[in-house]
């Protein structure tokens, strides 16, 4: 089921939090709404989920205008950033979600079992939901939203607040979980890796406005401006009258098609390799040195080249 917003504006305390002329999320796609903290990502999700009313504009789900409809009529599954539970077991929490959607008991039982199996929470199904580890709680939180098998699933920072090992596991498991349960998925994240790993489409949101939207490869290779390019992980520098974005790890010592003089500030020992950190025309550059390369001295100048780059703007 596709989701579209038109002329959407949301104001809070006299400040415009969100102002989107138009945006469409294709049916069956997974879109990451990506941007820095405070860019309006969660607000967009809450507006689509019916937890906030827009100041202006329209929201359509499956072609039907739902702008003024309560959350209960939107057929949306929502996993909040913070895993919040009612008292009682994980099973009770999953069951409550399905009961609130008026599913008969036999269906509920089957759905709970399936969601628990696919989301890896079978062993904790009968434990108190409020006593789970952060990773288990996040899986239970996702399982509750996914068990609804809603036409539209909304995930707010699904991998935030969990330890690194669990995050890596969940990052691996989540695409499979979404493929099993979710039709159209919109997830918000401030983490670039999450956005690229989990989504096939990308929306870049900065200060409540859409800077770029489309298939992720398209957005990544054609950042429309410096802010978007930097958010996508590029180091943005000017050369020969044009602006280019150099992806992380694409800098190398030496000459090339796009070469720059870097003033070395310091050399950082990472244990198994060295990084030279310096400035190129007022922009900070981080250069990973390959084994055997000469180590530049702090204060010195070295020639560096961008082995790969994209045009910005």
């Amino acid at each position, binding site marked *: 089921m596709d989701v579209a917003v038109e002329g959407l504006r949301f104001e809070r305390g006299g400040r415009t939090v969100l102002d989107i002329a138009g945006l469409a999320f294709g049916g069956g796609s997974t879109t990451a709404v990506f941007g820095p903290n405070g860019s309006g990502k969660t607000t967009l999700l*809450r507006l689509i*989920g*019916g*937890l906030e009313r827009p100041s202006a504009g329209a929201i359509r789900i499956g072609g039907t205008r739902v702008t003024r409809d*309560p*959350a*209960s009529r939107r057929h*949306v599954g*929502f996993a*909040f950033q*913070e895993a*919040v*539970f*009612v*008292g*009682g077991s994980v099973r*009770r929490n999953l069951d*409550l*979600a399905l009961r*609130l*959607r008026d599913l008969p008991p036999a269906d509920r039982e089957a759905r709970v079992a399936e969601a628990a199996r696919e989301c890896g929470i079978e062993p904790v199904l009968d434990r108190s939901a409020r006593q789970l580890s952060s990773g288990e709680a996040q899986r239970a939180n996702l399982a509750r939203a996914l068990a*609804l098998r809603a036409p539209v699933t909304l995930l707010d920072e699904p991998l935030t607040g969990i330890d690194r090992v669990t995050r890596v596991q969940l990052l691996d498991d989540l695409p499979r979980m979404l493929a099993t349960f979710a039709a159209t998925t919109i997830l918000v994240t401030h983490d670039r890796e999450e956005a690229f790993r989990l989504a096939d489409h990308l929306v870049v949101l900065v200060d409540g406005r859409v800077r770029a939207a489309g298939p992720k490869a398209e957005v990544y290779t054609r950042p429309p401006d410096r802010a978007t390019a930097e958010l996508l992980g590029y180091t943005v520098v000017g050369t020969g009258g044009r602006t280019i974005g150099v992806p992380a790890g694409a800098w190398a010592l030496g000459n090339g098609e796009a070469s720059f003089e870097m003033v070395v500030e310091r050399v950082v020992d990472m244990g198994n390799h060295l990084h030279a950190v310096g400035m190129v025309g007022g922009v900070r550059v981080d250069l990973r040195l390959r084994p055997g390369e000469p180590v530049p001295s702090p204060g010195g100048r070295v020639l560096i080249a961008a082995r790969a780059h994209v045009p910005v703007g």
Partner: protein
Amino acid sequence: MGDAIVLLLGGDAELYGIIGRTLAISGMATLLAMMVGVPLGYALARGRFPGRTLLLGAVNTGMGMPPVVVGLVVWLLLTRSGPLGDWGLIYTREAMVIAQFVIATPLVVGFTAASIQALPAQLPDLLTSLGAGRLRKLWILSREARLGLLAAVMAGFGAIVSEVGASMTVGGNLRGSTRVLTTAIVTETSRGNLPVALALGCLLLGLAFAVNLLLTLVQQRRNG
């Protein structure tokens, strides 16, 4: 205590009347305070409107309101020459229910607001997103906050079943009509009838204990 047991087992109709009246008046006042105080407490806990903090401050002040002052204000309102004198409620059980309701309501509002605020902040949004309507959401949240809500009932009931100032002022302690356990204790003490006063005191304590024990049993039951 022995006198209390003798009194209780003696089949004294007047004593049973006093006990029944005490439970009926304080029970009704608590029920009314819950009906008004729980939604108000919920609104104060979750609502965002101008004057909310001021209102919470007023409620917290009201939680420590001296019953005799409440009794005086209600008396001034209900007395024959007062603004509500035409209602003819002064020195009736209804007047006592009104006074006790005024005493219990701030306690219920305060305890409810605190227990709702103690719930995870995103719980109402979660229930909304799952499709719960307004009433169903209030019901689930009340279940989640039931420890605090039952504490509100206990605090409200405990405060009014044991107060004497307001009941005496607006009820008049009329034998067979508005006399309750606390006012009966005052009467027996002023008459120098200390054993009976003590026995009534023990009965009042026992009654308060029995009601609170019942509520505590409900409160401490595990999630179903």
